[in-house]
Every structure is written in C-alpha cells, then in structure tokens.
C-alpha cells in the first residue's frame, strides 16, 4: 500500500475550514457592508492593512481559504460523479488556488 499524500492537503483543508469559519463572516460584514456604508474611513483601513502583521494576516487567510475551497471543490466533484481526469482536475484546481496565493503575495508585499 502506497502511503497517501492526502494528510497534507487535508490538514490545509481543515486549517482553512477552521480559520474561514472563525473570520469570514466578520470580514464580510466589514468589507461587504460597513465599508460601502461609510462606517470605516480610508485612513483606518490603510493603517491596518499596511501594518506588517496586517499584510501577513491577509496572505495567511487567503492561502488557507483557497486551500480549503480547492480541496472541497475537488472532492465534491468526485462525489458528484466526475471521476475521470482526476489528476488533471486536481492540478487545475490546486494550481488555480496557488495562482491566487501568489497574486495575493505580490499585492501584499510588492
């Protein structure tokens, strides 16, 4: 029996699921509603997001949520019966997630 590499992907999926569960609803309230409503000023946003900790947090959340979503999407497709081209689908989905993380890293640190 070949040892599985799923533990790595599953641990990222789990960490991402937990972080998403803890922070995403609050973040949606902030950026989806409070921000367009004008409750938060530009200066405050700028202070929080240009702070080195803020930059790392943005990148960390992005990485974990993308890893979570990619893993869930991949397995849900198999559950729904898309059982062919598994490797290609996995490469495409995880590749998309990795691309998103790289893009975020460029945004945050460039």
């Amino acid at each position, binding site marked *: 029996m070949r040892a599985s590499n799923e533990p790595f992907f599953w641990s990222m999926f789990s960490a991402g699921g937990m972080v998403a569960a803890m922070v995403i609803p609050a973040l949606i309230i902030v950026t*989806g509603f409070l921000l367009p409503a004008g409750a938060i000023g530009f200066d405050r946003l700028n202070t929080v997001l240009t702070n080195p900790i803020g930059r790392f947090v*943005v990148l960390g959340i992005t990485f974990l949520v993308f890893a979570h*979503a990619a893993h869930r999407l991949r397995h849900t497709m198999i559950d729904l019966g898309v059982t062919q081209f598994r490797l290609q689908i996995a490469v495409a989905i995880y590749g998309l997630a990795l691309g998103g993380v790289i893009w975020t890293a460029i945004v945050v640190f460039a």
Partner: protein
Amino acid sequence: MLRELSAVFMAVYVVLMVIMVSRIYEGQDAYEDYRDFLKSPFVIVFHLIALAFALLHSITWFQAVPRAIRIRRGEEFVPPQALIGTHILAWFGISVVIIGIFLI
C-alpha cells in the same frame, strides 16, 4: 451540498477582499472607485449571499468538530455540545475583535 458550495462563495469573497486591499495600497482615489463598486446593488446582493453561505459554513464546521475530536475525561466523553459551544464562543470573540479593529 450547500455546505460544500459555501467554500466556493468564500473563495470568491476572498478574491474581492484582495482586490480591495490592492486598491487601498494604490491610494485613496483607487479605493474610492472600488467603494463605488462595493455600493452597487449587485455586489451588495453577492455579499448577502456570501454571508449566508459563510454562516452556514461556520455552523456546520463547528458541529463537525466533535465528530473528529473525542476528548475523554475519566469514563465520560466531553459532551459534543460543550466542544461546539466553546468554538462558537471563540467565534463571537474573534468576530468582535475583527470588527473592532476596523471601527476603532
């Protein structure tokens, strides 16, 4: 299947969030343009749907925790409700902190 779909909505939301961050780094004018985009009804509706899915994810996720983590004290297991409750308390605390960081 709605539970699984929540991941897609959260990922799309994160994309919007990163765009917002990049606009803020570009300066106040770029940010104000993006804020106009956020004010459009279509985007508000998207955020409402995304929030509903995110809440669904949070609740189903916390409910699943005691299935994987079984903590035994003596002869009894820590009741699932206690584990779920602890996570929900932490969730409220973290949410207050996040909203607080931006509002204060």
